[in-house]
């Protein structure tokens, strides 16, 4: 059997607190973009994909120990892994299960909140270590009693896609039998102000791949999937198989994507090669599609280079969730697996005019079609480009 089996998924984002609510939003074209309520920021005129649960609500839902240092990304991560357990009817994970999480900002939400309090308030000092991404993964691991292989990848917006890829490689090499992979990132003032200083935030709902797109919306999410070696699957339903993956570096600019989409082109090509398929076997692409001028053009050019005139159906679900940074790759992996399970393509919202350079039109209405193979793209700062290929289990 080719590829690594996915036997469970769990997700929380601005469009759903569980899998069914998520799918319902995707089918009804209901985006999660609105103005920030939980995040206290001066930029409350900037639309974001915020999860409608406050930290104290999350704390109560998850019955967390108030003495421990739970950052929002950690809580969202625990929530999503709990969802994974629920969705697979598992009570807990076997002790040999590993976890690899991808996150870009880790616990910076608590650092920005308590930066000026650490000196005078000893109670807050538990959050000093919590700033670092690895701490968040450890806290998630601890909650689920996972003591062995725990690691974290932080490659900006491709972090969790890379965590999924690394998990598959750990299983293929026999280093692990089971691994929870994915990622978590929350909205913070740090990232909102940061992307604002780069002048790539849209003041409206983002419009991926549209000629008149004017930037991205930030979002928050956590999503994890369970990868298992074939001899561990037992009677579990296989939601799909990760058959291809590829990472490449654009080596062009610290933040911007190259004009010829080189990194994206290489990542997609590597993933196709690993899956042993040709481009025309891809039924749907869940694009990175942030809604910035630069990304969407560069990614479209990479599509042209890989697929020629036969570009598969594609859409950017960031029009629903906003760009959830380090969590985006995992959230979109879950969407891709839903596409395969339900044999449907979720639309690209807010699109009206194809960009003049490439003339490409994303899918704008829900499509019920045969889906065997989905390509999911995630690109990040530092030129980090990753593509994953999920295929239907046969």
């Amino acid at each position: 059997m080719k590829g690594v089996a996915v036997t469970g998924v769990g997700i929380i984002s601005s469009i759903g607190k569980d899998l069914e609510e998520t799918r319902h939003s995707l089918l009804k074209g209901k985006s999660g973009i609105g103005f920030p309520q939980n995040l206290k920021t001066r930029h409350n005129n900037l639309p974001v994909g915020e999860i409608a649960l406050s930290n104290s609500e999350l704390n109560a839902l998850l019955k967390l120990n108030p003495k421990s240092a739970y950052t929002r990304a950690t809580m969202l991560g625990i929530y999503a892994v709990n969802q994974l357990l629920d969705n697979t009817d598992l009570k807990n994970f076997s002790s040999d299960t590993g976890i690899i999480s991808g996150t870009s900002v880790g616990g910076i939400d608590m650092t920005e909140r308590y930066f000026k309090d650490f000196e005078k308030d000893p109670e807050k000092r538990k959050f000093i270590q919590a700033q670092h991404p690895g701490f968040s993964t450890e806290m998630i691991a601890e909650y689920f009693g996972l003591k062995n292989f725990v690691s974290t990848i932080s490659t900006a917006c491709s972090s969790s896609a890379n965590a999924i890829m690394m998990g598959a490689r750990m299983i293929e090499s026999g280093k692990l039998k089971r691994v929870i992979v994915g990622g978590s990132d929350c909205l913070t003032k740090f990232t909102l102000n940061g992307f604002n200083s780069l002048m790539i935030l849209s003041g409206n709902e983002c419009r991926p791949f549209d000629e008149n797109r004017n930037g991205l919306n930030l979002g928050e999410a956590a999503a994890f999937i369970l990868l298992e070696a074939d001899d561990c699957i037992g009677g579990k339903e296989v939601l799909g198989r990760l058959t291809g993956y590829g990472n490449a570096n654009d080596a062009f600019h610290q933040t911007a994507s190259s004009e010829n989409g080189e990194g994206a082109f290489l990542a997609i090509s590597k993933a196709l090669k690993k899956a042993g398929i040709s481009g025309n076997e891809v039924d749907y692409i869940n694009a990175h599609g942030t809604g910035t001028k630069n990304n969407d053009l560069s990614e479209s050019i990479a599509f042209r280079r890989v697929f020629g005139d036969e570009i598969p159906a594609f859409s950017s679900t960031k029009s629903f969730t906003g760009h959830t940074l380090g969590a985006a790759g995992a959230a979109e992996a879950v969407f891709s697996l839903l596409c395969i399970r339900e044999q449907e393509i979720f639309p690209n919202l807010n699109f009206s005019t194809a960009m003049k350079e490439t003339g490409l039109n994303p899918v704008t209405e829900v499509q019920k079609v045969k889906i065997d193979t989905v390509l999911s793209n995630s690109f990040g700062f530092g030129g980090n480009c990753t593509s994953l290929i999920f295929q239907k289990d046969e």
Partner: protein
Amino acid sequence: MSRIYINGIASISPQSEDIFETEPLKEYQDNIIPALNQDYKSMINPMLLRRMSAAVKMGLFSSKKALLDAKIDIPDSILVGTGQGCLKDTENFMVSMLNSEEGLLRPTSFIQSTHNTVGGQIALDLKCTGYNMTYTQNSASFESALLDSILQFKSETEIQNVLVGGVDETSPAFTGFQKLDGQLKQEPVRNTDLLASKTSGSIFSETSSFFILGSEESENSYAELVDVEIINSTEVQNIGKRTEQFLQTNNLSSSDIDVVILGNNGDSRYDSYYHELREKLFAGKVQLAFKHLVGENNSVSAYAFWLASKIMKEKRIPDFIKLNDLNCKEPRKILIYNQYLGKNHGLILLKNLDL
């Protein structure tokens, strides 16, 4: 499985790279110690250098030195471990944001605050479009990158050379906070006295160590990398068993190890993990330490890997890194064990070339 050779090494730390040869040990009175300055302009374009924080320039400079050492132009993959990432730029942006109450902010420090800035800048400088990954798992960050490099050689047939390293920097406020939560010692301790310290906490530093791993042995080869293991948490009494299990998966036992390099950092709360191995599993073995040279940080085990490589190649163990009086003329197998605050345990196994 094919073998993995360490073919190039470079290190920037509070100590000179010539520490085995002539240089006397550098002593520091502070609990936060910087890396020695380098002639960065000799290898980094000044137009790029002007924006680089310590982590980025140390990472890029030591990468280029490791490449020169191995006589390789461009690696196939770039793997970086950094526990705390680009702290300085993160702090700069954070402080500006908080002080201006989210006012007008300059973008450069935000751009450079992401953890993969070092890996991205190395790729940009070398024009390397290959696999590029950044791990950030506390004291197991370098081990994570090293593990990925093993998988690279194992699963990707076309991989010949991998650049892998660990880098961490300090920054005034963020590293200062580590005194408030007890990660740093409360009283000043000289680095050379660190191992004898009986108090809690350690001293923090900036280091960067990078390596070229190759699928072929070269004239410059130092040693072979055999395997890596990461254990997130385990009790003190189990560390011996876990170490033995790791060696068993490599068809070895503790008796096959000639030299063990331990991450003792003078923190009275957690050095018990090292004592456990020193007194039991590796009681009759050469025991070495390194944090009294270069301090503690989340990727400092990369410095231990640099030391081990050098020991293997030069077949020499300087007295100032010894924890006991034993000697070994020609170490065949070296094990590195490190943890931080009782978590993120890492085991790295190397063997010499002649086996």
